[in-house]
């Protein structure tokens, strides 16, 4: 497929959805959402929580970032209207006027600086009357991509310690990890949302979410990638993001010997990603030989995802040892066990012995890593950080420099890419106007509930 695959998928979902009766957006109603992640903090700057698509989605309901990234990966103004370099590695961002936090206080440069400092203690930030200037050690484009991350959303702590934002919804009730109720922000700078409220139940596995959707208790849920095709029936509306999650094998330590490297190479060549994708993932996602997906970089196809048993056996034949490695997987992830067992079978064909386990202290782990950003340089840096790998800092934003960085990461043989998976969502037919962002999060800012009279 020559065109970018995810685009087709998302558009095709929209085509399915469009055949139902619809009208202009209607106001009112409470939307009920179920999600798997039990978010424990609503502070965007709280880096203690694990990054997830759900967390990003929640943050965007309540908070705004200074800039956003559009569908083509271009940076667009949001709370900031413009920006310019004010010196080498100094970026000045001018703020939009007339915006207020949910508590009624004006969005000021001081408030923005305080929020950014809280999320990035190492940044040097100064303020002017209506602008903030950030000194940084990255390229301007990388800094802007970073500012578009949900973790850099602008918040203000209220007197009771709760965060206040400028987003379309404000917090009405919060039971950490369990339930969040949001009400509409009437004075939202982008216009009042169509919904009156959103109620979000957390910690629901995919099965419970589906039951909730079918019983009418939830109107918007997450869908496991491998369930996407099964869910796309019965008049539900479904959509997926671009492939934004990397499934990979991550070794707990560096390769310490030529034997170790050769065994890891044998393992990487042994995995039959295409057949696993067809059977276990029900055709979802894309087999991956690279850390970043092709839609993001344009070169991912140069890292082969094809199994090559001859090369795997050849690599294994170079070694003198044959250890048994334990492969850990998440016991709460229903498909992870099947993936681990299948990978162990493939590895055995190449002479590598893997023992699937739920023990956290294994030799390698089957991991799912949401890519942090649609900006490939930022995504690779964050991926390296999340996996404990080190990536050389480059001053160039070129695709070639990115390729070199990714190639160097893969050459460590500490991570074996398996699949790039999209984030998928389903909603009842009466939920309209919701969207899936490029970064895998969902947006309900423009969602509305159809309420036609029979």
């Amino acid at each position: 497929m020559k065109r970018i695959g995810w685009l087709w998928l998302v558009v095709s979902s929209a085509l399915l959805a469009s055949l139902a009766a619809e009208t202009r957006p209607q106001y009112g109603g409470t939307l009920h959402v179920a999600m798997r992640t039990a978010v424990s903090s609503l502070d965007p700057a709280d880096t203690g929580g694990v990054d997830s698509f759900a967390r990003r989605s929640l943050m965007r309901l309540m908070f705004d970032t200074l800039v956003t990234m559009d569908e083509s990966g271009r940076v667009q103004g949001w709370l900031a209207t413009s920006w310019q370099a004010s010196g080498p590695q100094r970026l000045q961002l001018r703020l939009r006027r007339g915006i207020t936090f949910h508590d009624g206080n004006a969005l000021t440069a001081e408030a923005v600086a305080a929020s950014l400092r809280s999320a990035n203690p190492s940044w040097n930030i100064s303020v002017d009357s209506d602008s903030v200037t950030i000194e940084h050690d990255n390229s301007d484009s990388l800094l802007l991509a970073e500012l578009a991350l949900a973790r850099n959303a602008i918040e203000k702590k209220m007197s009771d310690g709760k965060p206040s934002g400028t987003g379309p919804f404000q917090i009405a009730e919060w039971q950490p990890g369990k339930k969040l109720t949001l009400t509409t922000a009437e004075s939202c700078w982008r216009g009042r949302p169509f919904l009156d409220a959103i109620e979000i139940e957390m910690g629901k596995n995919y099965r419970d979410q589906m039951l909730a959707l079918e019983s009418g208790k939830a109107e918007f849920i997450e869908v496991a990638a491998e369930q996407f095709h099964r869910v796309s029936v019965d008049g539900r509306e479904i959509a997926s993001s671009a492939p934004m999650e990397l499934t990979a094998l991550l070794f707990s330590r560096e390769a310490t010997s030529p034997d170790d490297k050769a065994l890891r190479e044998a393992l990487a060549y042994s995995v039959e990603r295409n057949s696993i994708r067809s059977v276990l993932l029900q055709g979802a996602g894309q087999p991956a030989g690279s850390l970043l997906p092709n839609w993001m970089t344009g070169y991912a196809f140069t890292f082969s995802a094809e199994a090559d048993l001859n090369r795997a056996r050849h690599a294994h034949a170079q070694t003198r040892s044959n250890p048994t490695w334990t492969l850990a997987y998440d016991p709460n992830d229903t498909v992870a066990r099947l993936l681990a067992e299948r990978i162990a079978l493939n590895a055995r064909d190449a002479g590598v012995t893997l023992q699937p386990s739920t023990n956290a202290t294994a030799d390698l782990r089957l991991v799912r890593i949401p890519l942090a950003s649609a900006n490939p340089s930022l995504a690779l840096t964050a991926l390296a950080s999340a996996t404990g790998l080190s990536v050389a800092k480059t001053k160039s934003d070129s695709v070639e420099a990115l390729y070199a960085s990714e190639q160097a990461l893969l050459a460590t043989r500490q991570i074996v890419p398996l699949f790039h998976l999209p984030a998928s969502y389903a909603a009842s037919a009466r939920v309209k106007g919701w969207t899936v962002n490029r970064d895998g999060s969902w947006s309900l800012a423009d969602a509305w509930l159809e309420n036609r009279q029979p």
Partner: protein
Amino acid sequence: MRIAVYNSAIPDVTANTVPRATRSILPFIFRLCFFLIVVSCLAAATDWSVPEQQLARKIVAITGPGAVSLSVENRSSLSRRDNDIVQNGLRSALEGTGLRFVKPEQSAANLTIFLSENASSYVWVAQIQQGGGAELAVVIVSTPRAAGGSSAGEAVPLSLRKTPLWAQESPILDVAVLEEGATPVHLAVLDAERVSLYRMQGGRWQQEQAMEISHARPWPRDLRGRLIPGRDHLLDVYLPGVLCHTAGSPPALSCRESDDPWPLVSGATGGNDLAVFPSAGLANGASTVVPRTAAFFAPTRNFFTGVLTPAVGKFAIVPHFYSAALVPREKYSLWLFATTDGQVHMVDGISDQTSKFGWGSDIANLKTSCGAGWQVLATGPGISADSVRAHEFPDRDPVAVSSAVEFPGAVTALWTEARSDSAVAVVRNRETGSYEAYRLAVACSQ
């Protein structure tokens, strides 16, 4: 990303249709001309020589001059034509650096070039295999992808014809044709931030002026707005809670917070309070005098409040509605309101009759010399996105008098133009995400 569709049908009503008359060759000519214009514009817009030269230099820095084999694979959305242009350009650039192309068995290096892409750029990847070794050297160049495009046209019997007016990436709220000969030559385009004036010069649209819209309150989501040509000034601009007027030459735009009602009857503003139209369905040329009815628009919402001025007979208030259309009769005017509950209210001044016609939320009326002289355009579901169809009202049931005109996405606005015999439809193109404005006009059947 999912794309919202505004205007599919209320189920359970099947619209009547008239038989199709003979197809004209005109639509084919329109399409062909448009296609050629678009293709030539796009071809002219892209200069591949810079990335071609860059890639050639990087390749020869590894291979050195000499004999190489070359294969090129297109893995991107480049058209076949652009692919051919790029391939020829790459070959020339490589030859210019001292490389000669030979068969693989005669080459010192095998060169494979992939024309790939990512979300924002074309990415060209060259894999170089030298001396029969397994190791591949990789060099890469990227060049940003161009954005943009324009629009299209077609026609059917008693036929609703769509003619492209304007296309842009940001949402279009309305387009007004300010001057035209055989085709429009002067346009005003309304979006959330400005009114832009464009003039056709030398076969191309040139921006003449951009007038910023000032507003204190945030715009509602699903923003709507109207451009109404003035009798003694260029334009009035109606937006939720804001009214703007142009004044002077070149025109300047002044805006103020206002809850002034929006005109529902087409035609320039600033004249008297009555509009005279021929009556629908009357062959004797009798005319109907129609008050210039206006309606209040909710300043923080996407609908009219339902308050009318002057009242339509005894009805000063109707339910919240998205759009309205007028059908003048001999002794009264029938108003149709597409209300927010998905129904159509037919108000004749004495009664308010509610029906479901399977329409979307946008309707508009046309005064034409075809058929009964008045048609109501209504949005509805198309084959893959929204469509618009013309209807007449012999009585209280609509009769479809044209085939549905298909659009490439959701219709986000449908307004009767000031000249009354055409309407402007704005569509969000489902594939490109851009907004496209079309003029819809009825052509009489044979």
